[in-house]
Every structure is written in structure tokens, then in C-alpha cells.
């Protein structure tokens, strides 16, 4: 009934988006700039949706999400390179994505340990630290090409493989939104809202904290593989804390705990700097101002009242009942 309608609407939206992008690409209407943005947009949607699980739903600040992405990207892309001539493209990509996800999830478990003991900004620093450690390690590893980067990655996840990338992105969105609407997701949200109360009603807090980190890591790892297979080259420097912060910005701008918001913010923030290219020298300045303005608007009384008016019906119903 209510749920069914939602599913249908969402499926329709997904279908329309897919058809529109496909149509535009095939019809040759889209500029090359826009076409080259298709995969990055999908990658950042995956990144921000997965991070929203940790930041928006678990309520822990993570400044190291790009590290998970890099682990996934490197392992998956190494696999892609190794199997380039052996396996069919799709099989190789599918396996690479899975392997990347698993590798990142394993790191997620490692990070899970401090997560159990630390909170808030202390945890944030530790995630940032892990990110920098991973980056340092990649910089000094030979197999990944060190600072020179891992190049010659087959370009198998560009807009030409949009269908694959899109399905993967949908999958990530679907899994995360399913999860947060389940008993496991509720447990995660309960920890965010009040962990003492969550413990008191029998939620194994530690287990769920790790779970959230691991799932988010897995998805970031998958996104990393797509990122690599779209660019053809991976460099450790691209996964530093600035990259993590960019993703965090998307999650927060989208509104914490809102998957839809995370998606929209990821799309906007990936496209915005590109759309601002016309402003040449003022590009990043305008970007910064836009970011600040969006944050201020999102939290303005005006916006609050807008949302509240939407909830007014419910409130009116309630106050009638109260009388």
C-alpha cells in the first residue's frame, strides 16, 4: 500500500534517469564534458550514500572514507589489469568490484576496533589517521606504482559501460535504504540517538558500530574500483583527507540521515565545479561561496518553516486529537 507506492515511484525515477542518460548518450546530444561526468557522478553517489550510513545514521564522524575507496580501487584495479586478457570484460569487472569491496571491508574491520572505544572527534581523527596511513603505504608500495601511481588500468567503467555502473549505484542505494529501514538499521539509528538507551534495550552497540563501518567500507571499495576503471590511473595523493572531506561535505549538505539528500548533494557537488568552468579564475571562489550559502540556506528559518509546513497537516491532526 503505502510502501508499495513508494517502491513504484522510486523504480520509475530510476528508470527515467537511466533512460534519459542512455538516450542523451546514444543520441549524441550530451557534451563530452557531461559524458565524462557520468561515471564520476555515480561514483560519488555511491561514496556519499555509503558514508551517510556511518555519518548520518550511525552518527559517527569519519574523515577517512576515501581510504576505503583507495583500498578497493587498488585491489580491484590490480585484478582488472591481471585478468584483462583472460576474462571477459564484464566478468572481470564484476569480480574486481567484488574483490575491491571485500578488501575495503576487511580494512573496515580493522578500523572497527578503535570505533568501539572512541567517540566523536577522537574517532574522527583516528579515521583521518587511518586514511593517511593507507596513503603512506600506497606511496611506498612497489606493486601499486608508489607515487607514480597504478596506470594502464583497462577503461571498462566509462560512460560506455553506463548500464553496469548505474546498476551498481542503484544496488548501493537500494541496499543502504533497505538496511536503514530494517531492524538492523533501526539499531544503528538508535545508537546515534542515544547509545545508553540503545544498550538498555538490548542493542549490541559494538557489533552494530562495526557493521556500519564494514558495510560502508565495502561499498566505498566497490565505488573505488569503478573510479579506477574510469580513469585508467590511480594515485595515492588522490585519496587524502581532502577527498574524504569532499564526500563528507556531500553527506552533510544532503542532510544527515537522508539518503535522497546524499544522492542529490553528490550530484550537485560533482557537477558544480564543472559547470562553473565558465567562471575561469573565480571558479573555486564561487564554489566556496555556493557551498557556504547552501549550508546556510539548508539550515535557515525559511527552509525550516518550509519543511514544517509540510508537516503541518500531521501536527494539526495531532492537536485536534489532543483537545
Amino acid at each position, binding site marked *: 500500500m503505502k510502501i508499495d507506492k513508494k517502491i513504484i515511484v522510486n523504480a520509475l525515477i530510476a528508470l527515467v534517469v537511466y533512460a534519459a542518460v542512455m538516450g542523451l548518450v546514444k543520441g549524441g546530444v550530451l557534451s563530452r564534458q557531461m559524458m565524462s561526468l557520468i561515471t564520476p557522478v555515480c561514483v560519488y553517489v555511491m561514496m556519499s550514500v555509503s558514508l551517510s550510513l556511518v555519518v548520518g545514521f550511525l552518527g559517527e564522524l569519519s574523515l577517512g572514507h576515501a581510504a576505503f575507496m583507495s583500498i578497493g580501487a587498488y585491489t580491484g584495479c590490480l585484478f582488472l589489469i591481471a585478468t584483462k586478457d583472460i576474462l571477459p570484460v564484464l566478468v572481470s569487472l564484476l569480480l574486481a568490484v567484488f574483490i575491491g569491496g571485500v578488501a575495503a571491508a576487511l580494512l573496515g574491520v580493522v578500523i572497527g576496533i578503535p570505533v568501539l572505544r572512541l567517540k566523536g572527534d577522537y574517532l574522527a581523527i583516528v579515521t583521518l589517521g587511518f586514511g593517511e596511513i593507507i596513503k603512506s603505504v600506497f606511496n611506498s608500495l612497489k606493486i601499486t606504482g608508489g*607515487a607514480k601511481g597504478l596506470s594502464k588500468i583497462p577503461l571498462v567503467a566509462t560512460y560506455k559501460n553506463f548500464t553496469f555502473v548505474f546498476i551498481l549505484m542503484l544496488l548501493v542505494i537500494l541496499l543502504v535504504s533497505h538496511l536503514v529501514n530494517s531492524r538492523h538499521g533501526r539499531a544503528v539509528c538508535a545508537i546515534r540517538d542515544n547509545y545508553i538507551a540503545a544498550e538498555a534495550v538490548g542493542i549490541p552497540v559494538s557489533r552494530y558500530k562495526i557493521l556500519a563501518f564494514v558495510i560502508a567500507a565495502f561499498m566505498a571499495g566497490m565505488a573505488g574500483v569503478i573510479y579506477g576503471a574510469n580513469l585508467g590511473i590511480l594515485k595515492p595523493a588522490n585519496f587524502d583527507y581532502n577527498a574524504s572531506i569532499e564526500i563528507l561535505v556531500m553527506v552533510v549538505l544532503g542532510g544527515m540521515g537522508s539518503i535522497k539528500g546524499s544522492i542529490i548533494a553528490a550530484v550537485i557537488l560533482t557537477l558544480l565545479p564543472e559547470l562553473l568552468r565558465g567562471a575561469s579564475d573565480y571558479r573555486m571562489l564561487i564554489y566556496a561561496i555556493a557551498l557556504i550559502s547552501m549550508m546556510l540556506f539548508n539550515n535557515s528559518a525559511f527552509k525550516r518553516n518550509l519543511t514544517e509546513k509540510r508537516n503541518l497537516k500531521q501536527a494539526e491532526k495531532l492537536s485536534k486529537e489532543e483537545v
Partner: protein
Amino acid sequence: DEKTFLLGGSGPLTGAAASYGTSVKQGAEIAIQEINDAGGAQVGEDTYKFELAFEDDEATEDKAVQAYNTLMDKGINGFLGCTTSGSCIAVAQLSQQDGILQITPSGSAEGCIEPDNAFRICFSDPEQGVAMADYAVDTLGYKKIAVLYNVADEYSTGIYDAFTAEVEAKGAEIVDAESFNTGDVDFNSQLTSIKGTDAEAIYVPAYYQDITYITKQASELGMELPFLGSDGWDGVLKTVTDPATVEGCIFTSPFCASVDDEKVVNFVKAYQDAYGETPDQFAADAYDGVYAFKAAMEEAGSIESADMIDAMTKISVSGLTGDPITFDASGAAVKDVKFVTVKDGQYTYVE
């Protein structure tokens, strides 16, 4: 008939690496101004004036790809880029599919010119590393050398790898290999460690920003070891507060802003008039890159990339960074490696 050749370019204009991209852009602008003032390029019947479309790529690969595609949307006829190696490699894959002539002014990693359509003006990293190793061991006679390089930077590590291999092949010794990270400003620990060894010289393959800190801190530590460097050193004199700190250093460089060559003098003057600062090697590379385009189209008699690419190996450019510069089949520039030193606070070529 007057037509326009739209030259694309990309490099970091914002972020920590912004100065490199800015130099490339400005160097190219000077060359274009000069060519256009002189009547443009003569291609068969037509005269072509140059126009530059330059995009910010923040020195990251994904932005570079987008910058390149934006330029392709604008319909560029040739691509002068990217400024940094990683971006260059990422874009080269695409430019190869497009079959467009790509000349990178400063992308020094080996992978930058792998596709047939890609050429470069600057030295390759291994080339430089080997050249300096040969010079240090054979000419200067050093037997024990310490190295300080940027572990997070492809340029620095690329040269470092080649340098180390060559030094060891020649029977000399790398007594200490210290490293740092992009953005570091304090090198005292590494320098102190090197100070504690019996090294006869320090080789620092890095850009002048880092060098500024390193040489100053070395002099504060009372180190008197001679410094050897890579072409990234060029420009160091404009950022040090005390030229004495770099006095006597020797670095590989194809370009030297203060030599007496007429071309160089004119370029430096034009650049200073336009931007109020002394050009560095990035600017010079870009300048030569633009002239390579001019030479290629004139040689080919066409601005079709396929024709220009064929012509590349036939041209000879009399540039700032080499005279002549020619290109081999691999896409690399063939030019002499020169060694520059700082003497009395001025750059001069080592005889």
C-alpha cells in the same frame, strides 16, 4: 585567409600545485601573443592565428579528464597538456582515441608519451636522473651521495629511482635516502640525518618550493654539502630570501631565465611585463610547446592532427629549452641536458 587554431591546455590553477599550471598557461600565452603578432602560422595557403583555451585540472586525474573533455567540446585543434604527469597519463588514453596531437610541456613521467599522438617538451624523469647521476659521478667525482626526495610525488620518485640505479651502476654509493611528503615545510630531521652521514653531496629532485625550504634549513643547520638538483629547481632564486643558500648548487635544466641568449632575454622581458614575475621552466616548456605546434602545422601543411603527428618527428624547434629541439618516434624531445649553477646569486650554465 586568416583562420584560428584553437589550442587547448590544462594544468592546476587552484590548490597546492596552482603555480605550475599558472606558469604553463602564462608561458603559452606569451608564445601565442608573439606568434600572432608576427602574423601567425603559415599553413599552406592559410594563415593561422593561435587562440588558447586553458582549463584548471587541479592536478588530479579525474578533473584533468573533465578539463580535457570540456576542451574537446570547445573544438580544440591541438592539446598542450597536461602540466602534471598523472593527469597527462589519464588524458593521453583519451587523446589517443581522439587522435589529437598532444604535447605536454611538463609531464615528465614515462607513461605520458606512450600513445603515438603524445609528445613532450621537458626531459623524462629517468633521462634527467641518469644525466645527473653520470655528471655527479663521472664529472664531479662524487662517490657518496645522499638523496632527499618527495615520496608522494611521481616526478620526484621517478627521477629518484633512475638516479639511484645509475649511481649504483657506476659503483658509487647512495649513503642515505631520505624522503618527505607534498606540503611538508620542515626538513630539519631529514637534513640532520644526512648531516650525520659521510655524504659528499645531496641530490634533491624536487620543485623549487620545496627547495626553498630545504636549502634554507640546511644552511641554518650549518651544512656545507653541495646541492644537486633536477629541473624543478628552476625558479628557486625568486622564492629564496637569501640567494646565498643556493649558491653553488647544480641542477639539470634546459632553461635558464638569466642567460644571455636573445630569445631568452626577450621571453623573460615579455613575461615580466605581462605578469610581473620571472618565468620558470614550466613557462618556458609551454612556450616551446606552442612553437612545436606551430612548427608541426607548418611542416604538415595542415592542422589535421594526423598530419601534424606525422610531421612531429620531422620538425626542429629553436626553443628556449633547447636549440634545436627535435622529437623522436617515442614522442620524447631530443635536446641537450644542460647543467645550471647559481653563481653570485645568478643562474649560469656550467661549462
